[in-house]
Each structure stands twice: as structure tokens, then as C-alpha cells.
């Protein structure tokens, strides 16, 4: 059932090297402060750190106690304090407070701040303003790529999304470029580059500059990865806003996968303790169901359970020798599988329970209606009811955004009334949230100019296409619009289905949304890879109002092997969802590619909305 890869699919590069590099560098930094020391770790860095270096490794390098960076007073008695933090001003304040308190108490200790993945001048400025720049030593831990899975690298920078797409802060782009540079030094440069989006373009340019500055040594390296595709999250908000229905996405939506692992609570474990479970390709059961539509998962699991039972049953009628063999060789594997199976069955049950409670079917139906663009009124009242019933602030917000983007903004009446309702339901502070959403283009009002849209379409029928294009360009410069409907039509995102869509044997990437919608981001990638350029996609790019930021950069080289040309690195700037991963993995299997994903962070609709909330 789980689709095997085509036999000719290329091997993935071994990314565990990245982990080793990061670990060695961290150890080196810790050794720079010889002797016993207490380590203060920022909460956001704890999970990533856990994947790199275990507590015992830290202890080996004379880390005495571990603390979380939080607003509580510090009780550390160590003479040396080491802080492992993201370069945020908030953290600098925390450290400054701590140091200044020590100073007042006449206490002298050694302080070392390790910034990950890099330090920012602004942070050092704050340390200086607080008058402790001379008391602390600063270092950088260039840990920017965490391999979460065999084909997934995450920068673990969820703030990238808000910083760049809302605040317009470009500070992380350099980090992205450096991360890519690291990849290209380890695995060879990428001969074919494509990208879409302003940030994509900048990242690509910065990375190129870095490559050029490097002297010849790495240039000769054989390219292992033939293509790289940069994509900005704001090119496709729709996909990220949809409810996920493939297993991994659903687990993420329900339980929140954090840094590649998930905390299954008592309701899953059917006991009173919760368990942290690593979800990746090493979990054999999970690996087979992660990309499956949820409706298939139960059937698969029960089949699996039956097989398992049969395996167990084999031991009946065994003689002593066979039994010994069985116990020593197979039993452990079976037990392991058993454990995993019960885990995922538990998770499924829990998901089912939650989803039926919230009337999941209705929700999905509304989403599909929005994507397809019919029964808009009905959907709008559904959203209104959703708000009135206070189902969930994040969910309501998500639906509003989905409505806005698919419809090119809300009509003024709805815009006002939905917002009013929302404020009444969930509190007036969300006025700021709305202002943020508007700025990011997620929740907007149809400009009066939209009356022109109708005109425009009429005009385009009358005059030549070219002229119409010019007119539309002029319009689109007025306001950045999503143009989702037109793009959807152009790229055929809503598959025409005759009869039932068989989710067991998917035909296209739409299966990740129950056959109702092909993720826009993935479709663009598919189209560009097929053409090896943006040729013929001008209209789409124009509709995305992104004409200046669609680029291809092909280095003519004979060095790229055919193997490498089927390895594609997709860089999601601003995060990607598990559904997108599943869709592209599906595409890869169909076409004989292997995709590797690099994302600033894993995301989903809830995380997007939370990033915008105040």
C-alpha cells in the first residue's frame, strides 16, 4: 500500500553529517569555557539541541546544570554561566538583568553567550547599552540546518515567517544563504536554480555571492543535487491554510509535531503518562502511513495488525529450535512493530474523536467550497456561525483568511461584519491581529477597484490578449491581489472528477486534500521542473504579481550526472506543511525524482495564524 520508490530513484545524500558538524562545533564552543559551567538554553532551542547533543554529551563537556531561559530568577551557583540563545533582544535583556544583578551583589562570574545560528549586531548593541558588553564573551554556533528526516532539513526558525512577511525584516535571509552555502560545500553546488518570490530571489543572490567569494577549492566538487527551487510562502498561502488530511499533516494539526517528534498524551497512550515519539522514516509503521490519506490509514493499520498476529501465531507448532530462533531474531522486531502499531492506532482513535466532535466533515466541505468558489454565501454564513459559537479563535481566523484569499478579499460588508463578530467573540485585542493580517495580505477588503475586475474580463474579451495583459498589470499594481481563482483555472488546481476520487490509488497530488485541490506550491514546482524554466508560465507569474521575482539560473555543466538531476532541493522560505511534503513525495514517485526539503520551519494553518496574532 505504501508506495515504494521507483527502482531508478536516486539515493538521498547523507545528511547526518550536518548533525555531526553542529555537534562538534558546539563541543568546541563549550570547551572554550573550560571548567564546570551551567548552561542556560532558550526554550525554542531545547528540542533542536536535543536532536544534536544529548544531556550526557553536554555533561561530558563539563556542563553542570541546565536551565531554561525564562523570566524566573536564577538560582545558579556556578562560577561560569553559558547562554545558548537565539539572537533576540529579549534574551539580551534577560542576560543583562542577570549580569547586572550579580554586579550589584558584588559577584563576579564568567559569562558566555552563544548565539545560534548567528549573532546580530543589534544584540551586541543592546549588551553594550546595558553596560555589560565587556563582561560577556560572545560566540556563534552556526547551527542552521537540522536534519529532521532523511529528506527534510529544517532551520527551526519559525519567527522567519513573521519577521519577513509581516515586519519586512530581512535579517534571516543571510542565514538562509549561509545554510545553502554550507550545503553546497558539503554536497556540491546546485547547477539548476529556480525560484519564485522576492525573498527567494534575494536568498539566491546572496547565496551566489557567497559561492563566488569562495576560492576555487569547492568549485570542483561534483554536484549531488541537480536542482534547487526557492519558494516564498506568500506565493501560496491557500495550501498552508487548508485543513490537512494526510496522516502526518493530521497528526501535526492535532498534536503539533515539534522538531520531528510529538508528545502523545494520555488519550493516545490509554494510560496516564504521555510519551514523546520521534516521527521519521525510521519508524517503519509511520513511514508507511505518513503520506496516506487519513481514510486509508485505519484500514492499513488493521491489515498490519492482522499480519502481525499471523506472525505471532507462527510460533504455535514450532519446535524448540525454531522457537529459540524466533525469540532471538524475530520477536524483538515484532514487539517493536507491535508497540508502534498500537501507538498509531491510539493516535488515529484520538484524532477521530476530536474531529467528529468539531463536525470535521462540515468544515472540510466548506473549505472545498471555498477552494472551488461556489456557494460563497453559504460558506460565509458557516464562518459566521463558527465565530458566533466561539469554536476556536485560530480556526475562525483561518477560515476568514481562506475566504479572503480565494475571493480576492472580502466584500466590504462581510469584511466589517465578520471582523465585528470576531472581536465580540474573541476579544477586542484582535484588532491588532486584523491589522497584521491585512498587512500580510491574508485578510483584506476587496478594493473598490474590484468592480474593475469584471470590466477587465470583459475588456480582455474585446481587445487582444497582450493589451489585456497590460491593463491587468496596471490593475494589479494598485493592490496586491491573490488572484487565486484565475490561477486555479490556469493551473488546473481543481481536478475535474468523474465519479468518486479513489483515495487509495491517487492519480495526482490532489489526493492530499481528498482529491479536491492540487496544492498550488507543488503544482508550480511540477510545472517548472517539467519545462526546466518559467517559459509558458508568464501568465501565472503575472497573476501572482511576481513577475520580477521569478528566475532561473542554469549553470551549463557536464558534471551533473543524470542521477543528481533527479534530486531536487526545494527551499520553502517561511515554512511548509506536511501536506506539501506528501504531495511532492507523491510527485517524485510518479516522475522518478527524489525531493529534498529545506524549510525555515515546519508550519500549518494554526501556526501561520498564531504568528499573525497579537
Amino acid at each position: 500500500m505504501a508506495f515504494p520508490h521507483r527502482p531508478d530513484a536516486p539515493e538521498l545524500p547523507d545528511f547526518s553529517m550536518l548533525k555531526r558538524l553542529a555537534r562538534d562545533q558546539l563541543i568546541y564552543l563549550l570547551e572554550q569555557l573550560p571548567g564546570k559551567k551551567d548552561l542556560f538554553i532558550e526554550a525554542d532551542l531545547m528540542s533542536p539541541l536535543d536532536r544534536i547533543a544529548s544531556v550526557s554529551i553536554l555533561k561530558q563537556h563539563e556542563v553542570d546544570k541546565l536551565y531554561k531561559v525564562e523570566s524566573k530568577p536564577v538560582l545558579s551557583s556556578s562560577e561560569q554561566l553559558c547562554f545558548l540563545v537565539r539572537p533576540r533582544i529579549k534574551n539580551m535583556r534577560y542576560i543583562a538583568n542577570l549580569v547586572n544583578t550579580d554586579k550589584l551583589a558584588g559577584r563576579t562570574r564568567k559569562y558566555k553567550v552563544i548565539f545560534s545560528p548567528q549573532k546580530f549586531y543589534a544584540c551586541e548593541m543592546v549588551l553594550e547599552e546595558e553596560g555589560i558588553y565587556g563582561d560577556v564573551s560572545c560566540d556563534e554556533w552556526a547551527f542552521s540546518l537540522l536534519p529532521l528526516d532523511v529528506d527534510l532539513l529544517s532551520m527551526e526558525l519559525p519567527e522567519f515567517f513573521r519577521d519577513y512577511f509581516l515586519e519586512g525584516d530581512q535579517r534571516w535571509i543571510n542565514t538562509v544563504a549561509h545554510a545553502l552555502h554550507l550545503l553546497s560545500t558539503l554536497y556540491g553546488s546546485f547547477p539548476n536554480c529556480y525560484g519564485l518570490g522576492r525573498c527567494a530571489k534575494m536568498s539566491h543572490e546572496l547565496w551566489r555571492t557567497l559561492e563566488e567569494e569562495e576560492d576555487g577549492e569547492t568549485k570542483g566538487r561534483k554536484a549531488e543535487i541537480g536542482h534547487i527551487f526557492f519558494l516564498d510562502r506568500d506565493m501560496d498561502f491557500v495550501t498552508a491554510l487548508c485543513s490537512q488530511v494526510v496522516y502526518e499533516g493530521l497528526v501535526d494539526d492535532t498534536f503539533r509535531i515539534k522538531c520531528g517528534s510529538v508528545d502523545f498524551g494520555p488519550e493516545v497512550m490509554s494510560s496516564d503518562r504521555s510519551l514523546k515519539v520521534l516521527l521519521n522514516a525510521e519508524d517503519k509503521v509511520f513511514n508507511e502511513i505518513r503520506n496516506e490519506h487519513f481514510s486509508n490509514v485505519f484500514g492499513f493499520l488493521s491489515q498490519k495488525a492482522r499480519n502481525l498476529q499471523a506472525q505471532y501465531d507462527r510460533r504455535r507448532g514450532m519446535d524448540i529450535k525454531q522457537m529459540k530462533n524466533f525469540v532471538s531474531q524475530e520477536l524483538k522486531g515484532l514487539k517493536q512493530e507491535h508497540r508502534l502499531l498500537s501507538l498509531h492506532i491510539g493516535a488515529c482513535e484520538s484524532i477521530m474523536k476530536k474531529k467528529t466532535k468539531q463536525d470535521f466533515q462540515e468544515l472540510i466541505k466548506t473549505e472545498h467550497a471555498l477552494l472551488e468558489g461556489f456557494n460563497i454565501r453559504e460558506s460565509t454564513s458557516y464562518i459566521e456561525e463558527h465565530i458566533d459559537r466561539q469554536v476556536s479563535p485560530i480556526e475562525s481566523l483561518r477560515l476568514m483568511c481562506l475566504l479572503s484569499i480565494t475571493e480576492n478579499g472580502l466584500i466590504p460588508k462581510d469584511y466589517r461584519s465578520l471582523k465585528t463578530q470576531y472581536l465580540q467573540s474573541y476579544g477586542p485585542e484582535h484588532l491588532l491581529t486584523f491589522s497584521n493580517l491585512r498587512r500580510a495580505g491574508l485578510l483584506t477588503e476587496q478594493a473598490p477597484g474590484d468592480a474593475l475586475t469584471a470590466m477587465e474580463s470583459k475588456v480582455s474579451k474585446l481587445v487582444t490578449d497582450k493589451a489585456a495583459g497590460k491593463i491587468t498589470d496596471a490593475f494589479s499594481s494598485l493592490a496586491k491581489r491573490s488572484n487565486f481563482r484565475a490561477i486555479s483555472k490556469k493551473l488546473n488546481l481543481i481536478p475535474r472528477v468523474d465519479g468518486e476520487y479513489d483515495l487509495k490509488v491517487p492519480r495526482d497530488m490532489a489526493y492530499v486534500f481528498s482529491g479536491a485541490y492540487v496544492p498550488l506550491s507543488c503544482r508550480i514546482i511540477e510545472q517548472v521542473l517539467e519545462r526546466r524554466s518559467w517559459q509558458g508560465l508568464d501568465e501565472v507569474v503575472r497573476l501572482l504579481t511576481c513577475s520580477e521575482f521569478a528566475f532561473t539560473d542554469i549553470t551549463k555543466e557536464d558534471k551533473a550526472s543524470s542521477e543528481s538531476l533527479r534530486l531536487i532541493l526545494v527551499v520553502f522560505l517561511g515554512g511548509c506543511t506536511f501536506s506539501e511534503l506528501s504531495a511532492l513525495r507523491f510527485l517524485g514517485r510518479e516522475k522518478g525524482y527524489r525531493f529534498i526539503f529545506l524549510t525555515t520551519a515546519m508550519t500549518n494553518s494554526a501556526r501561520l495564524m498564531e504568528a499573525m496574532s497579537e
Partner: protein
Amino acid sequence: MDCYTANWNPLGDSAFYRKYELYSVDWDLKEDLRDCLVAAAPYGGPIALLRTPWRKEKAPSVRPVLEIYSASGMPLASFLWKSGPVVSLGWSAEEELLCVQEDGAVLVYGLHGDFRRHFSMGNEVLQNRVLDARIFHTEFGSGVAILTGAHRFTLSANVGDLKLRRMPEVPGLQNVPSCWTILCQERAAHILLAVGPDLYLLDHAACSAVTPPGLAPGVSSFLQMAVSFTYRHLALFTDTGHIWMGTASLKEKLCEFNCNIRAPPKQMVWCSRPRSKERAVVVAWERRLMVVGDAPESIQFVLDEDSYLVPELDGVRIFSRSSHEFLHEVPVASEEIFKIASMAPGALLLEAQKEYEKESQKADEYLREIQELGQLPQAVQQCIEAAGHEHCPDMQKSLLRAASFGKCFLDRFPPDSFVRMCQDLRVLNAVRDYHIGIPLTYSQYKQLTIQVLLDRLVLRRLYPLAIQICEYLRLPEVQGVSRILAHWACYKVQQKDVSDEDVARAINQKLGDTPGVSYSDIAARAYGCGRTELAIKLLEYEPRSGEQVPLLLKMKRSKLALNKAIESGDTDLVFTVLLHLKNELNRGDFFMTLRNQPIALSLYRQYCKHQELETLKDLYNQDDNHQELGSFHIRASYAAEERIEGRVAALQTAADAFYKAKNEFAAKATEDQMRLLRLQRRLEDELGGQFLDLSLHDTVTTLILGGQNKRAEQLARDFRIPDKRLWWLKLTALADLEEWEELEKFSKSKKSPIGYLPFVEICMKQHNKYEAKKYASRVGPEQKVKALLLVGDVAQAADVAIEHRNEAELSLVLSHCTGATDGPTADKIQRARAQAQKK
């Protein structure tokens, strides 16, 4: 061949010394060498001459001329000495000329007579004057040692990193020491001085008397002392005419020689080389030169004119008015090959090759002889090595030819030593050329390394030759060609008579985008020369914006720097410029600059959000960005203010801002929020409990849950809560309270705007099937099936669905037919379906 060893002089049994001419110099010396202060740098370095009028008290008004020549006598610089009297001249390891003045100031000049810098040897010397000074070289760099008029020594071991060390006093020292020198032992510089018959060693802690072991008796004074190039050996010339030679530690004596001349020598230097067979000292008097070693006889030369000795790593250079010679111990390889009647393999090979060229069969004989002994590899090696030590290219060639000839008869002789020697010799012959004038020997060249040699060529502005060498040796561009081009460019920008455009263009044409060339370094040099415009032009060629910014800031082109920083995409760089601008401009101008740079602006805003909230407000104010200003105040109402009055005031400001921004919705919403806050406050006062910061919906719910129905309704009216919401709200609240009667009353108060399905749903959520059923009957026809299914009445649902003849509803019901009792219902539906299809 016989004449080849004619200039070989044996010393003792084992070693030969030879003297050959490097250049026949033809320098136009105005003064006699004897009247000059002379300094010649080791490793074939330049020679500086300065007439010393001060000693002779002759016409002090006439300013002397300082002249600098290359080793081949080509003039490099010549200028009038305008500063004070000079005591001593010397060259540093970087080939900078150090001129020690009588007042303790040391002036540093470049090879071309360009003044570099100066430093002082301390205040004490100002009074006491400098009597004598020495410049010496150690592994740490070049040092200066001075003897002051108070007979005290001060030294600095490295003029690059000046640390003056005043040496301890020598007890009872009344007179000037007869001679002194610097010893370098155990990584520290010491001073050895002779006063009458006594020798003293000064280290930085103490002064101790020392005696050389085995010194011939009767010494009443030491006239001259010399330390070897490597500081390992020491030679002392006594007034009895003895020359004592031993280790510099004064623990061991090598030999002693009586030369029977009591006149003080003009110069005495060591002449040895690494792995010397013989350790010898060269002593020079006015017209006599003597090589003295551990042998009963010495080698004597006659000097025709004033000469000056320059100790080198592997010999002594001797120059005079008309010639420049090199005296050294013949290297082993050369000796083996050229010694008369030598049967060494190399000698035989050379013979064989010569015979071969004469087409004589003797070649074969010689070759056989070597091969029989199995010494052909050594023979080739010897020839290669000997070629390195030859000065004359013809001899180099014939030796190399012999080596190449021998190589033909060897199967596996690694070619690299031969190839490398050929390359090295080409480089050496090139720099030894008369016009270049760096007479390096092979050993010196190896000690110096190619990198330093290139530096020295660059220092002499011999850029083309340096580049040719780099290309010839195929050095990596970054170390070789680019580095030299960069130096050339730095020199080029100093040419003040050429216009900025021409210089910039010339530099760009030559450099292009050679890897490893930093345009910003060149620009920095241009700026250093006061050519700001040129610097800016050059920066344009710099591909890395990150490199442009610091210099632009230094040149006070902050706005240009800001543009470049933004181009670079490096936010840290942008930030650096921003803070620079913030300090440089007044606030208004600063904000105006930001206004045109959205990226910088958003970056600065982010910073202000955390660090300088007030500035953030000013920024919005300045831009008339009322929308953001409103948001700012709303944020403030949550974060900064605790008291209700303060919060309301902040909200009022926000509302005003929103009005200005023409955002009426936000303004109204904010005003509502103010009203709500005041009201919640009143509710808290009157009813107790927690109301503040609840949403309107939650406030009403809380009121209903608390039994305050009237107030709840009042609130709903005041805030115009839509009916639908109110119904949902009441329904949920009453169900939560399980006030079923109240709920029923409410349901009958008027026709429900949300229908009755929600009633069923909510009741079922509270697991009250009984109540739910009541409402199920009232649900409208479209939702009837759903409602019935909710309360679990599958049979009736089926009936309704069949009645509606709705396919979707039928399948919905069918999917609920899971229980054992639902069998008949399912059948019924199937039948209905079949019927429908028939029709």
C-alpha cells in the same frame, strides 16, 4: 677545468674558500666609503650610504646626502639628510632603513627613500646622547640596541612592536667599551661588551663577568668581536693579535689563531654556512683581508680599495668602489665534483657528459664506472645540487646537462628535484641580473622563501618581474599574481599627477576581477593618500558590498554606505550604518533618510519595538502613519498601563489616530472597547468576579451564568449583539447551567433565528436525549434527518428521508445504520432507493 679551481683556497685539510665577483659595480660614489656610514642588508639587500660630516667637524652647515643603492650599484634613492646627526644606519628584516640619531630618535625610511615613521629609544638618551647603535635581526624581527653617553644600554628586540628594555648597569664602567655586540640566546637578546681585559654579559636582569675558556694570556684589551649569522658562534680579536673562536655561550673554544697583527681590524665577520666543514672568520684591515680558521695557515687577500664586509647566511659579501664580491666556503657538492682528480660520482658523470658531447667512447667508460658502483643516482643528485651553488649560468647549464644525461640511464629517478632546481635557478638568475640586483645564493633563497622574495620584488616596485615569476612557478593566484597586482594598485593610487578616472580605469583594466584582489583595500590606500573621490570610484569595482561599507563610513559617505549595505542584504551591515547615521545626523534628518529606505526603516522599527518605544512612536508620527500609531497605542493600552483610566486614555488616543487614518471601523471598535472596559469595571465593582478583558461574548455569557439575565440583555442591546449570536450564546449558557425549563421558555420566546437543530446538538452535547427530542420535532424539514439522527432515531430519520426522496439524506441515514437493530431500516431504505430508481 683546471682553471676552474684556480680561485679555490684551501683552509686546513678539508675546506676550500673561493671568492668570485657578483657585479663589477659602477656606482657614482661621491665620497669614499671610509667617510660614510654604511649599511647593507643581508640576503643580497640594498646598501645605504650617508656621509658623516659630524665626525670630522667639517663644515657642519653642509647637509649630507643619504643614498640608497641596490647590491649591483643601481641608485634607488638619494636625498638630502635634513634631520639630526646620525649615529648608525641599519636595515630591518622588511628592508626598511633605520637611522638612529644622536638624540635617540629612530627614523624609518622605505627602500625608495620614502619616510615611513619614527620612534624614540626613550627619554634618557635625550640627555646623554647615543654613542653607538646596532641594528640586529632575530627570529622575532629586527631589533635596535644603543649605547648611551652614560654607558648604559637600551634595546628593543622588535621595532615592529616597540618595547624598550633598559639593560642593567655595568658596575664600575667608566670608559666606553672597546667593543660590544648583541647575542641572542634562549629567545632573548643579551649584550656582550669588553672593557679592558674583562668581558661582561648583560641580560635584562643582571650583569655578569665572563671569561672565554682557553684564551691566550696577556690580553689587556679586546679590539673587535663578531657573532655568527645564526648567533651560534663568537669570535674575539685581542690586542695581542689573537683571534679566539668559540661558541656564543662562551662555554667552548673552537680554536685560536695568532695573526701577528696588532692593529685593530676594520671589520671582522664570520664566514660559515649551514653544515660548514670549517668555521672561519674573515678579518679586514685597510688593505688586507684574512680568512682564519682552525688551521695553522690563513688565507690572505689583498684589498685594492676601501671595502666593506656584509655577513650572509652562507658567506660574506665584500663590496668596494668598483666591485662586489662573494666569499664563501665551497659547498660539498661542488667540491666533490670539481676538486682536482676527484673520483666522486658527480665528477665522473660530468666528465662522461663532456666526452659524450665530443662523441667519444670514453663517455661509456665513465658511465660504466659509475654504474658498476651503483652510484648513478648520487651522481645525478650531486650534479643537480652543485648546479644550484654555481653563480655562472654556463656552469649551471653544463652541470644540469650532466644531470639530465645521467638521468637517461636511470629507470626510476624522481624528476621533481631536477625540475625544481631548473625553476629555482631561472628565478635566481633573473633576480641576480644587474638591473634587479639581488645577488641571492641558492641557500639564501631557500631560507628566504619565494614569498619573501616576491615581497622584496614588490618593495622594489618590480611588479612585472614578480608577476612573471608567479606565472612561471604557477603559484596560486591569491598568493601570487593577485597579491602583486593589489600591491601595484596601491602604488598606483599614490601617483598624484594622474587623474582619478585614469587611475581607476587603469587599475580596473589590469585587475579585472582577479580572485583575491580586494578593491576595498586599494580604495582604503587611496583614501589614506587623501583621494576620496578615487576611493569611491575604486569601491565601485568591489563586488562585496560588505567590504565597501566600512570604508564609506570612514569617508563620511554614510548615505552611500547605507545604500551599499542594503544592497548587500546583510542586515548587520545595515544596522551598523544606521547607528552611525543616528549619531551623525540630527533626528529629523535621520528619520528622513530612513523614510526613503524601507528595509532600513523596518529593521530600525524592529529594534525600537524592543529597545526604544518612544522613538517608534516618533517614527510613526513623522510619517503620519496614523494606522500604525493607533496600533501602537492599543498595544500600549495592554502592555504599559495597568489602571483602567490609563488604558482608556491610551485607547482614546488610538481611536483618534484611527479616525485620522480614516479607518472608521478600527476607531469604532476601539471606542466600543473603551465602553466595554468601563462597563466591565463597573460590573466588577457591583457584582464582584472577573470581568476585565473578557470579550463581549464572554461578558454576556458570564452574566447569564451568574443569573444576571437583565443585565445581559441590556448589554446585548447596548452593543447591538446580533440575534443569531445572542441565541447561540443563551442556548449554550443555559445548557451549561442545565436550566432546561428556562431553555424551553427561551426557545418559545420567538422563532429561533438559528433554527432548532443547534438546540438538539447542544442538548445532545450535554447528554440530555430527552430534552433533545423535544426540539428535534421542531427542526425544519431540511435538517430534520440530521436532527433525528443526532437523537439516535434512525428509523424515523429513514422515514423522513424516504419521504423527501433525497438521495444524499438516504445515504447519510444508511451510513448510520450500524446497530444490529437497524437491519430492517436499512432494508427499507434500500427498497425505497430501488423504487426511486425504477421510476
